[in-house]
C-alpha cells in the first residue's frame, strides 16, 4: 500500500489550488481531466469499489467489517518529528473563558454574566472558532469593559460573606489573601514584585471604599486589580528555557495550557499542585489530562467546539415554509440543536470518536423530532435516546440539524451541504463563488432539485470547476432528506437520485447515498486529519501552520483507527507541539 500522504489527493489539491486563485479568473480548460465516470470493479456487489480487485496483491485491512478498507495502518512514528509552531505569548481570554475563569476563581455555581460589559470581539474571517489568539486584544473599548466587569465581580464577592470566605480568611490577612488569590488569578505564584504592587493596592482600599472596613475595602480593590491584570487577562508565557531545538514551557504555563485547552478555564487546585510539584511532565501530563476530561467542564468545551465546527448558529435561521411543511415544529432549529448537544455529550462521555459521530445510529429525540425521523415518540415532552434505521440514518450528518440548516425554506440545498462537507469535514480550500452568479432557475416540470442544480452548475464555466467534482457530489447523497431533515423518496414526483462519486483520499469513490457517504467519511484519512486539524486550531487559537503537519497526521491516524475524542485530545495535549515553544521565537523568527 502506498504510504500516507497529505490526505487530499494531489489531483484534488491542485484543483483546490486553482480555486484559491479564483474560479472566475480561470480560462476554461477543456483538457482538464474530469473524475472518471465509469464505476470501478465491485465484485462483492456492495456498491463499493473493490480495491483488491483494482490492485492485486494489496492486503486489505477492514477492522470494522464494512467491506471498505480501513485507513493505512502505518505506525505513527512514520509521520516524522513534531515541532511547535510559533505562537503568541499573550493569548487573551475570550468572553467565555473570562466567565468560566471568574466562576472558578471565586467558586461560583453560576456564571456572573458580567462579560456583558465587554464589546463584541473582533472575529477575523477565516478562523471558525471564537478564540483567535492573535486577534483578541485589549483596546480602549475592551479595557473599559474589563474595568467595569472587574468592579462588578469585586462588589459581588466582597458583599457576600460566603463568597468572600471562599477566597479570604476572616479577619483578612492581606499578605496571605494576595498570595493565595494571586496564585489562582495569575495562574502561577506571584513574584515578590507583584506582591508588593498588590499590597499597595490593598492599602488604598480603605480610602477607596470608606463605607466598609479597611480590609474588606482592600480585598475589593485587590480583586478589581487582579481581574484587570495582564497576568489574568492573558495566558502569559514568558519561558525562554531552551532545550535543544525547543523552548520548554514552565509547569504553570503547562497547567494553564491544559486547563484552557480542555476546560476553557483556569487550572484547578489539583492541577496547580501538580505544577508546583513538578509533575507536569511525561505521563504526569497525560494523567492530569485524563482526569480533566472526566469533568463536566470538558464536556462543555467539547460541545462549544462542535457547535462552532457544525455551524450551529445557523439553526436559529431554520424556518421551513409552512405551506410545504405544515407539521414542522415551530422551533425546529432549537430542537435540532438540543438533539445534537445530547448526541455529542453522550458520544463524548461514552468514549466515542469521529467514526462513531459519523456512523452512529443512536440519537436523542422528543416527540416532534421523532415524527421527522419516523421513530416511536418518547412521550412526555422530554428527549430520550432512540436507535435510527441504519439503512437511512448514519451519524450526525444525517441528523435534522445539518440537513435543515443547509436547506432553503422549501428545498434541500445540496450546494451548501456539499460546501460544508468539503470545507469543514475534508478541509478542502474551496474559494468563494464568483460575484454576480446568475440565479438558480425555478424547478421545471419533470425535473428534480438535483437536476436543476446540475443543469445550473455543471454545464458551464466557471461554476463547473468547483461544483462538478467537489461540491455537488458531496451534496447530492443527502437529496433523500427534505428541508426539515425528513426522509423523502420522490422529488417533484420523480424518484430521488442520491448516487455520487466523492473525492476523498485516493480518488473518486462512488457512494449510493448519505449512509454510504457517512461510512466513506468515517474511513477517510482526509476527514480524520481535518477533524484533528480543527481540534488543534481551537486548542492553539490559530490556523494551521506548516509545523503542525506531522501532529495532524498522527492525531488523524489515531482518530481513523478508532481513538475516542478524549483520546485525540490527550494525543494533542501531550504532544511536543503543545508542551513546547519554537526556539525560532528567540531568533526573531516569530514576527
Amino acid at each position: 500500500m502506498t504510504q500516507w500522504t497529505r490526505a487530499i489527493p494531489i489531483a484534488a489539491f491542485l484543483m483546490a489550488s486553482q480555486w484559491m486563485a479564483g474560479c472566475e479568473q480561470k480560462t476554461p480548460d477543456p483538457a482538464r481531466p474530469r473524475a472518471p465516470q465509469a464505476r470501478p470493479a465491485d465484485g462483492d456487489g456492495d456498491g463499493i469499489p473493490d480495491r483488491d480487485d483494482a490492485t492485486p496483491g494489496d492486503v486489505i485491512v477492514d477492522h470494522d467489517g464494512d467491506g471498505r478498507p480501513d485507513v493505512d495502518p502505518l505506525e505513527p512514528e512514520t509521520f516524522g518529528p513534531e515541532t511547535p509552531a510559533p505562537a503568541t505569548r499573550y493569548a487573551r481570554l475570550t468572553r467565555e473563558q473570562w466567565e468560566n475563569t471568574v466562576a472558578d476563581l471565586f467558586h461560583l455555581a453560576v456564571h456572573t454574566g458580567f462579560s456583558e460589559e465587554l464589546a463584541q470581539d473582533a472575529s477575523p474571517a477565516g478562523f471558525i472558532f471564537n478564540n483567535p489568539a492573535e486577534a483578541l486584544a485589549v483596546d480602549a473599548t475592551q479595557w473599559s469593559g474589563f474595568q467595569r466587569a472587574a468592579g462588578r465581580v469585586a462588589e459581588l464577592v466582597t458583599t457576600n460573606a460566603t463568597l468572600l470566605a471562599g477566597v479570604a480568611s476572616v479577619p483578612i490577612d492581606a499578605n496571605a489573601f494576595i498570595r493565595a488569590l494571586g496564585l489562582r488569578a495569575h495562574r502561577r505564584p506571584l513574584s515578590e514584585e507583584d506582591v508588593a504592587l498588590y499590597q499597595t493596592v490593598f492599602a488604598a482600599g480603605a480610602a477607596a471604599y470608606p463605607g466598609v472596613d479597611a480590609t474588606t475595602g482592600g480585598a475589593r480593590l485587590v480583586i478589581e486589580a487582579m481581574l484587570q491584570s495582564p497576568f489574568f487577562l492573558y495566558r502569559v508565557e514568558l519561558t525562554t528555557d531552551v532545550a535543544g531545538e525547543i523552548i520548554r514551557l514552565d509547569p504553570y504555563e503547562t497547567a494553564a495550557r491544559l486547563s484552557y485547552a480542555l476546560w476553557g478555564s483556569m487550572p484547578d487546585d489539583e492541577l496547580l499542585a501538580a505544577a508546583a510539584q513538578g509533575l507536569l511532565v511525561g505521563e504526569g501530563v497525560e494523567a492530569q489530562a485524563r482526569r480533566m476530561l472526566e469533568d463536566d467542564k470538558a464536556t462543555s468545551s467539547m460541545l462549544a467546539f462542535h457547535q462552532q465546527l457544525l455551524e450551529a448558529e445557523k439553526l436559529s435561521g431554520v424556518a421551513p415554509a409552512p405551506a410545504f411543511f405544515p407539521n414542522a415544529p415551530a422551533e425546529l432549529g432549537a430542537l435540532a440543536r438540543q438533539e445534537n448537544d445530547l448526541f455529542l455529550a453522550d458520544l463524548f462521555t461514552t468514549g466515542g470518536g469521529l467514526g462513531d459521530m459519523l456512523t452512529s445510529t443512536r440519537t436523542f429525540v422528543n416527540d416532534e423530532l421523532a415524527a421527522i425521523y419516523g421513530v416511536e415518540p418518547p412521550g412526555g415532552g422530554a428527549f430520550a435516546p432512540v436507535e435510527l434505521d441504519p439503512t437511512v440514518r448514519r451519524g450526525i450528518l444525517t441528523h435534522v440539524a445539518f440537513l435543515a440548516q443547509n436547506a432553503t425554506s422549501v428545498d434541500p440545498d445540496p450546494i451548501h451541504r456539499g460546501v460544508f462537507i468539503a470545507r469543514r469535514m475534508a478541509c478542502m480550500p474551496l474559494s468563494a463563488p464568483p460575484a454576480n452568479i446568475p440565479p438558480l432557475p425555478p424547478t421545471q416540470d419533470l425535473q428534480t432539485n438535483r437536476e436543476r442544480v446540475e443543469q445550473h452548475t455543471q454545464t458551464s464555466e466557471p461554476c463547473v470547476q468547483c461544483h462538478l467534482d467537489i461540491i455537488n457530489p458531496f451534496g447530492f447523497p443527502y437529496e433523500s432528506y427534505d428541508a426539515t431533515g425528513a426522509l423523502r423518496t420522490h422529488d417533484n414526483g420523480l424518484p430521488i437520485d442520491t448516487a455520487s462519486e466523492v473525492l476523498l483520499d485516493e480518488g473518486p469513490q462512488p457512494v449510493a447515498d448519505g449512509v454510504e457517504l457517512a461510512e466513506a467519511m468515517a474511513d477517510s484519512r482526509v476527514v480524520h486529519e481535518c477533524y484533528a486539524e480543527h481540534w488543534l486550531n481551537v486548542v492553539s487559537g490559530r490556523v494551521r501552520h506548516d509545523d503542525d503537519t506531522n501532529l495532524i497526521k498522527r492525531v488523524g491516524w489515531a482518530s481513523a483507527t478508532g481513538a475516542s475524542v478524549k483520546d485525540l485530545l490527550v494525543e494533542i495535549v501531550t504532544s511536543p507541539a503543545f508542551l513546547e515553544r519554537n526556539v525560532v521565537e528567540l531568533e526573531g523568527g516569530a514576527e
Partner: protein
Amino acid sequence: MKAINQIKTKMNRRLVLKGFGGVALALPFLEGLMPKQARAQGIDRRFAIFFRQANGCAQAQVTGEIGSEPERFYPRDAGALTEASMAGRAVDELSAHRNKLLVLQGVNMEWFDYGDGHAMGALQGLTAAAPLVPFAGGDSEAGGESLDHRIGRELNSDGRESLVMFAGQGGGWLNGPCISYRGPGQRRTALHNPWIAYQNLVGSQQGLSDEAQTQIALRGRSVNDLVREQLQRLKTRPELSSADRARLSLHLDAVRDLEVSLGARLAADQELVLEQQAPGFDSTDGDQVLETARFHMDIAALAVSAGMTKAAAIQIGVGNDGNTRYRNSDGSSMENYHFISHRRLSHDSAGAVIGNADVLHHTIDRQFARTFKHLIERLEAVPGINGGTLLDEGMAVWYNDNSTGPQHGIANVPWIIAGSCGGRIEQGQMLRLPGAANEPTHRRLLNTIGSAVGCSGGTMTNFGDASTNGALLSEVLIG
C-alpha cells in the same frame, strides 16, 4: 450555567421608567458636556460620523427576478436639491434638511478580488483597500486601515481610536462587525450595547454623587498604576514578537485613555432611558436594530460634541445584514434583509422570487433614511462654536456597501453627506461625479472626506490602495 445577572431582579429604578418606553434621548445636554475650552472661538471640532447600510438600495436596475425596477432612491435631478426632485424617493425622508445635504452619484468602487460582493463592499467601504488574501469570499479581511481609524489616529487627542459601534445580531456573513480596521487584517472590536457604549464613554457607573465619582476615579488610578507597571514590565521582555509587543502597546494606550475620559454625563433620567432601551441591541427585529442605531448615534453625537473623538463608525447588521428582519409599513415582519435584497427566499440565487422585493427594499431604504435623519437632527440640536450647529462643524455620512442587491453592484454606490465640515463640503445638491461610467471614484471620496476633516494637514491623498487613483474630488470640496 445561568448567569447571576439573569437571576437577580433588575434594578428597581427601572420600574420608574415605565413611562419612558420608546422615548428617544433628548440632547440639550450636549451643550453642557462641551469642554470649556471648546466653547472658545476658533476651536476645531471637525468630525465624521459614518452610518453604514448593507445590500445596496432600490435604485433603478434590471433584475432577473423583478425585471425593470424603477428609481426609488435618488432625487430626480442633479443640481440643487428640491422638495419636488426628492419626492417619492427614499431620500425624501431627509427633505427637511436638504440644504445641508450632498447626495453623490457616481461613487464607484474598485473591483478588488474579494471573491464576494458583500466582502468587496463592506470591507472596502471605509478602507478603499484590496483584500488581504484574494478570493477568500466570506473569509475575507480588508488589506488596509479604515478611514474612521485614520482620522482618530491622526486627529484625536492622545491618538485615541475612533468610536466603532454595531447594531443587530452578530455572527453571520463576514463575522459581525467588519467595517473598521486598525490596519491590514486588523479588524476592530465594535461596541454593541449602547448602554455599554455610553459607560465606556463616561468611564464610570451611573447615578452616583460627585463624591462617589471621585472615589471611583481614585480606585481607577490605583488599579491603573498597577496594570501599567505590569504591562511596562512585560513589554520589555526581549522574547516578544512584534505582534505581541504591538498588542501590549495597544493595551497600555487603552489604560492611559481612560484616565482622560469624559468628565460629564447624561442627566440621570436620560441614563435610565438609555439603560432601559438598550437591551434590543442584539435583536433581529429591524425596529429594535434601528432603535439601537439611534442610540449609537446619540452616543456618537455626544462623543464628537465633547471632543472625545473626531470619527465614529456605526454598522447596521453583519456583512450581508442577513439576520435582520425589518418591518413592513403595516407592521409585519419582512423576510430577512438579505433575502429582500436578493429578491429571493434564499441567501443565494436558489430561492423562490419575492414578488414585491423591490418595494420592500425601498421601504427598508426609507427606514435607514429616517434613522440617518435622527443623526442629523441630533447634530443640529447642538449649538456650534462659531454660530450654526454642531452639524456645520463636521459631517454625518450615510453610505452603503453596494449599489444594488441582486448584482452586489459597486458602481453608483449611495453616499450621502450631511454637514459642511466647517464650510469645506458642498451642500444642498445632488452631484454627479465626473468621469467615465464606472470609473472608480470611491477612494478619491474617502481621501476627500479625510482631508475635509483635517487629515494630513487638510490634503490627504495617500489613504487606501496606492495602486488606484487617490486624487481629491474638487467637485465635493468648496473652493
